């Protein structure tokens, strides 16, 4: 195998798993709450900065910082739910209000990150260092960890949704909210749980990714856009779609980058998604309106 090919494949799988991880959170929230969370990138940033702070100021190892960052992201997402989402649940204009509110939260977070830290790029140490080479391409162990974690999380989320009580409640709420509340499922609390879980996923993505891209107050924006594209591509609200589409788009983008140059990657992905929407408007695993998750 040529170096270029391996490089493209490795990059594709790595980024694909990252996009999938981000998209998983978005798609869960969309499926259950019908909320397009444009603060997802901000939650990513919250998780990364908390982890960075734990490592740099408290001098703790990254393995301690990782869970703290993830928890902080989940807590932040839940707080956002309490303040800005819960008051408008079930009210007319829910979509307008939450769309703008999440945009507002995301700008507030990046401003706060500049104020508390500074706009300079930060480095979070990788969870595991070291690398090896396969036909002259450096494979970092952190990259393998990211891919493994992402796949494991998809499996866990799938099991969680299928077999646990809370998971079943989430699916029930996303399928038929009124029927679910008649079955004594606390709908609003379930919404909060979904948003917190999605926040934890975003935070984890943030901590794991920051060794690759440097951390700055706006570094969540690009992964979020990619995750949004993945979510559409896979079908909004579909967990399986997020997994497959993440890898498809990641590998597609990576091959274009390696063979045609970085400048063509984004236009290529954009064209692919438009083509997809013309051919299959519901995405790869679009499940229409009746069943989600």
């Amino acid at each position, binding site marked *: 195998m040529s170096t270029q090919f391996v490089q493209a494949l490795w990059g594709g799988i790595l980024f694909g798993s990252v996009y999938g991880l981000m998209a998983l959170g978005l798609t869960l929230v969309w499926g259950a709450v019908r909320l397009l969370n444009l603060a997802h990138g901000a939650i990513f940033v919250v998780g990364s900065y908390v982890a960075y702070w734990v490592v740099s100021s408290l001098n703790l190892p990254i393995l301690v910082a990782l869970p703290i960052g993830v928890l902080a992201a989940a807590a932040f997402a839940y707080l956002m739910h309490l303040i800005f989402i819960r008051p408008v649940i079930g009210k007319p204009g829910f979509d307008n209000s939450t769309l703008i509110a999440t*945009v507002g939260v995301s700008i507030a977070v990046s401003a706060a990150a500049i104020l508390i830290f500074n706009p300079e790029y930060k480095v979070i140490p990788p969870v595991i260092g070291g690398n090896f080479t396969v036909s002259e391409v450096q494979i970092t162990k952190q990259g393998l960890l990211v891919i493994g974690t992402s796949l494991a999380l998809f499996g866990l989320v799938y099991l969680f949704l299928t077999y646990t009580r809370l998971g079943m409640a989430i699916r029930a709420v996303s399928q038929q909210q009124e029927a679910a509340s008649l079955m004594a499922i606390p709908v609003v609390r379930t919404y909060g749980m979904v948003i917190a879980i999605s926040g934890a996923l975003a935070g984890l993505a943030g901590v794991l990714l920051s060794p690759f891209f440097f951390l700055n107050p706006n570094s969540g924006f690009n992964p979020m856009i990619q995750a949004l594209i993945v979510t559409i591509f896979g079908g909004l609200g579909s967990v399986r779609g997020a997994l497959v589409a993440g890898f498809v788009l990641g590998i597609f983008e990576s091959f274009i980058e390696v063979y045609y140059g970085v400048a063509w990657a984004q236009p290529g992905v*954009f064209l692919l998604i438009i083509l997809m929407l013309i051919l299959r408007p519901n995405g790869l695993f679009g499940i229409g309106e009746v069943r989600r998750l």
Partner: protein
Amino acid sequence: MSAQTAATVGLARPALDLAAAPWRRVSVWTVGGVVAAAIVLPLLLVRLDIGTYLMTLLILFFVQAVVAQSWNLIMGYGGIYSFAQVALFAVGGWTSGVLVHSLGWNPFLAILVSPLVAVVAALGIGLPTLRLRGVYVVLLTLAFHELARVFAVTGPRFISGGGYGLVTVQTFQFGNAIGDQRTIYLYYLAGLIFAIATFVIWRVIHSPLGVAMTALRDSETYAVSRGINQFRVRLVLFAISAFFTGLAGGYSTHYNGGISTTIFDFPRIIDLLAMIVIGGWGTFGGPILGAGLVIGLDQYLVALGDYQTLILGLALAGIAVFAPQGLWPLLRATYEKYLAAEPLPPAVEVSPAAPHDTTDEL
């Protein structure tokens, strides 16, 4: 019978139904007064010490208000959740900038081309996306924004200027006018663009097209079943909105003498969004009021630095959730209570809190 009857009918015109022709409700005197005041204002302002500063603020207000109004037309009235407004502004700005910078066109000629290119770009985004549900529009327009940013930074040198944008574009020249005199001309030009955009948007809102878009926003199923072609209405609105956004972009390039890639920064979107939300989403006067407020407050809050963005973001989220109607309806209610001779007929604009279809949210 024909000629004579026609003449009598012509003479005995029935009284205008004001509710059916809402644009006639605005008195010519009010509009004329505002226009006259806007024309005289700079002549008074030059005599003040801070007059030039105030005039540049007004120019900024005109440009931003045009963009905010165009955005509100599609987002507030049309219910199209497009985030491509800043990108379209940039398209207009770059078109005009490249024409002047690389081809040596006259700026006055070049800004006439930028709205056209912006419309073409809008059709390019609109054709594949506007058939889809709202959430797809959000995602694809955000992706377009990002695409445009990457292209502006990494594109060919005559566009990217090496990554910073176009930094030395010729500005508007009005004969030999310099200093205050030139600012006055710039003010008039911006004011003209603002007036045209406001007038056209006002007419669009009260045209059959405008009624169709409000109907689509408030109950898509019902409107479509009454024979409104949703895709066509949305596409036309998108094009109108892009036209004025592109024009504002072209003006801004030659006003600033360049266009920088920082235009794509997220805070720009937030500023515009704040104008619409604070002023009143889906109301005619909202974005104008909001633009005035945001630009005015900016001058005081600029000392706060990054706290300003933090406050703006939280205020935006708070208003969107707790007071989704914005300030304009409040102003209108006050006017009706204390100043109007008789209660105004209910506004055409429907607040975002109006009942939506439960089935086609976002």
